[in-house]
């Protein structure tokens, strides 16, 4: 891509970010202020209700609690009924979020050893997962392609155009995939996790695009999960990622095609318009020139043929008004035959490339040497 295109797209992205920023700010800041007020009110209420606690002690406690929660330890509740965040299944889940680059962040390593190991682990794991995803995407594509081929065979019987088939297959792909990978899991999450519909869809989209904020995480709450819940979630993430990769690259392709097509179309349109105007003006000029030359030519020819006729038939040139009906029709025919000639003389001259390309050669369907032959034939007949 040329630098111009790249910088244009870059500015578009920056613009997109700025637009997003303003919209987010407008949507979220009021809520944030409301939350702040609410929590400060809580704090004041707590302090007034329990006058033996002073503000700084409370601050201290809150700081410690917050940093503990960041480390994953929830100080509410007692010690016994808490599951560890680093038991085997949760660690497995965490490893999965690292490798898929989703990175929820509800669990994260806090020891130095954990951080170093995380770096090394991700370095090896991300390409590995990339291979896996490529393979899964491939298989998914083949399965879907076969299904589409069958459907296309059916549709072809209805004599629908190729374009429509492609469009239908795209739509089918998107619809089907959305149903299996977005709608169904959203419903399941809504029931099992107790989220609202919007929250479930939000979680699905944020996870499958690998953004992974971590404000909603499946399997985080201490609910009674079925044994196979987490592995099924992991499997869904794998296949859903492949599907989302396909959809997002399709959107990217559309962007590309649209930008290219628009560029091409605009360029083509401009080129065509320029060409057309050039053709028309060239033709005009040529026509005018040829006509003026031709008229002179015709006049000369007419004059010479008349002279010949008059010399042969003994007609006085000064008395050319008196013609016998036969000679009049003859001269009329002669004049008639010269009607097509103006066009012919046009094509006789070496025209510029544009004119020939537009096929003005074929405007009349007559070839150049036809005129000469006809003229000669007439003159021969006269003799």
């Amino acid at each position, binding site marked *: 891509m040329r630098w111009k295109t*790249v910088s244009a797209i870059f500015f*578009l992205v920056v613009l*997109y*970010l*700025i637009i997003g*920023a303003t919209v*987010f700010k407008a*949507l*979220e800041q009021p809520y*944030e*202020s409301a*939350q702040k007020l*609410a929590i400060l009110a809580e*704090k004041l209420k*707590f302090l007034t209700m329990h006058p033996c606690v002073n*503000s700084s002690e409370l601050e201290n406690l809150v700081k410690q609690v917050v940093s*503990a*929660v960041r480390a994953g*330890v929830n*100080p*509410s509740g007692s*010690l016994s009924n808490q599951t560890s965040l*680093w038991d085997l299944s949760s*660690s*497995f889940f965490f490893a*999965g979020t690292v490798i*898929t*680059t989703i*990175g*929820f*962040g509800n669990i*994260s390593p806090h020891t130095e*050893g*954990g951080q170093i*190991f995380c*770096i090394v*682990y*991700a370095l090896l*794991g*991300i*390409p590995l997962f990339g*291979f896996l995803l*490529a*393979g899964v*995407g491939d298989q998914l*594509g083949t399965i879907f392609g076969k299904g589409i081929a069958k459907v296309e065979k059916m549709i072809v019987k209805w004599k629908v155009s190729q*374009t429509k088939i*492609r469009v239908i297959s795209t739509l089918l*792909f998107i619809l089907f995939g959305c149903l299996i990978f977005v709608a169904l899991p959203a419903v399941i999450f809504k029931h099992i996790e107790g989220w609202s519909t919007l929250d479930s*869809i*939000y979680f699905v989209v944020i996870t499958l*695009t*690998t953004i*992974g*904020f*971590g404000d909603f995480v499946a399997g985080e709450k201490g609910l009674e999960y079925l044994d196979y819940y987490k592995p099924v979630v992991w499997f869904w993430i794998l296949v859903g*990622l492949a599907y989302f990769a*396909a959809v997002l*690259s399709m*959107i990217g392709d559309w962007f590309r095609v649209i930008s290219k097509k628009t560029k091409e179309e605009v360029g083509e349109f401009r080129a065509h318009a320029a060409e057309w105007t050039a053709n028309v003006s060239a033709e005009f000029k040529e026509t005018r020139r040829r006509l003026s030359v031709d008229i002179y030519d015709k006049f000369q020819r007419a004059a010479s043929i008349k002279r010949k006729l008059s010399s042969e038939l003994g007609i006085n040139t000064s008395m050319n008004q008196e013609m016998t009906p036969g000679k009049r029709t003859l001269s009329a025919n002669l004049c008639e035959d010269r009607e097509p000639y103006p066009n012919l003389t046009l094509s006789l001259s070496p025209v510029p490339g544009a004119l020939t390309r537009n096929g003005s050669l074929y405007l009349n369907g007559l070839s150049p040497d036809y005129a000469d032959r006809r003229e000669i034939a007439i003159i021969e007949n006269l003799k």
Partner: protein
Amino acid sequence: MRSLGKSWLLLTGFVLFYIIYLLFGALVFSSIERPVEEKLRHDMDLLREEFLNQSCVNAASLERFLVRVLKAHKYGVSVLRNSSETSNWDLASSMFFANTLVTTVGYGHTTPLSDAGKAFSIFYALMGVPFTMLVLTACVQRLMYPLVLAPVSLLQRSGLEPRPATMVHFLLLLLLVVLCFFLAPAAVFSVVEMSWTFLDGIYFCFISLCTIGLGDFVPATQPGQRYRALYQVGVMVYLFVGLMMMYLLLRSFHKMADLHGLTTFLQLPRCEESDPDEDREPIVDDEPRQPLPKDQAASKPLDPASQPSYNSINKG
């Protein structure tokens, strides 16, 4: 038929290996982190006991209070005194958030609270993520020539064979990227951010540039940060350029793997020689572009060593 069977075999092999890898990671993380967690939990219990003993607060009201505080904290709203001035949704922070959304890093230190915000995030991400990937790949394509192809040809002209030349170049590029995008920024972060160590800086750089984005370390979130807006913009620029360099690295690795026959051995799509032809590419005919993932996987090679998503945008 044999190749089909072979590809299925390879796929199951990958899946098995992947599961084993995950299990291994789980074991190691568990054994490293769990003792520390236990200790922290124990400390918190002691803290609670201490607090409750010396004050008139009963356990229930403390619980209630703490739950509210933590819930607010999850959304980035803090109850501490000196953090009440800075908002998480002023223009620069919102832009930072939009950036993390669009590059799929997704720290999660601030998340949309309102329903409208969540709905908007969904659409914004669905449009913005492929858009960003397009930009990144476009930039990388332009950078391929001066940063990869020209040096490799230079190396070749100075006498090296093609294969070692690509390897030497790749190692040099790797060294350069690590120096400029991991070590140097980590040093800067460890100085600017009060509570980060050098290792924390490197950890943050790595987690961000791989777009994992756990969110345990996020710059510019300390209360009382000076020049916060400028700092955030700087981090955004760093993220963008860093992502570009990572893509470049992966692409040159892919080319090198191609040359060494790794990709054909693993039956993965090759890197297409599409750089100079990008502009002269035949325009799609009147039909809409074949969107089937099968065609995508076959014709537009998925870069296996790159991000697991949006590979097929990365043409070659």
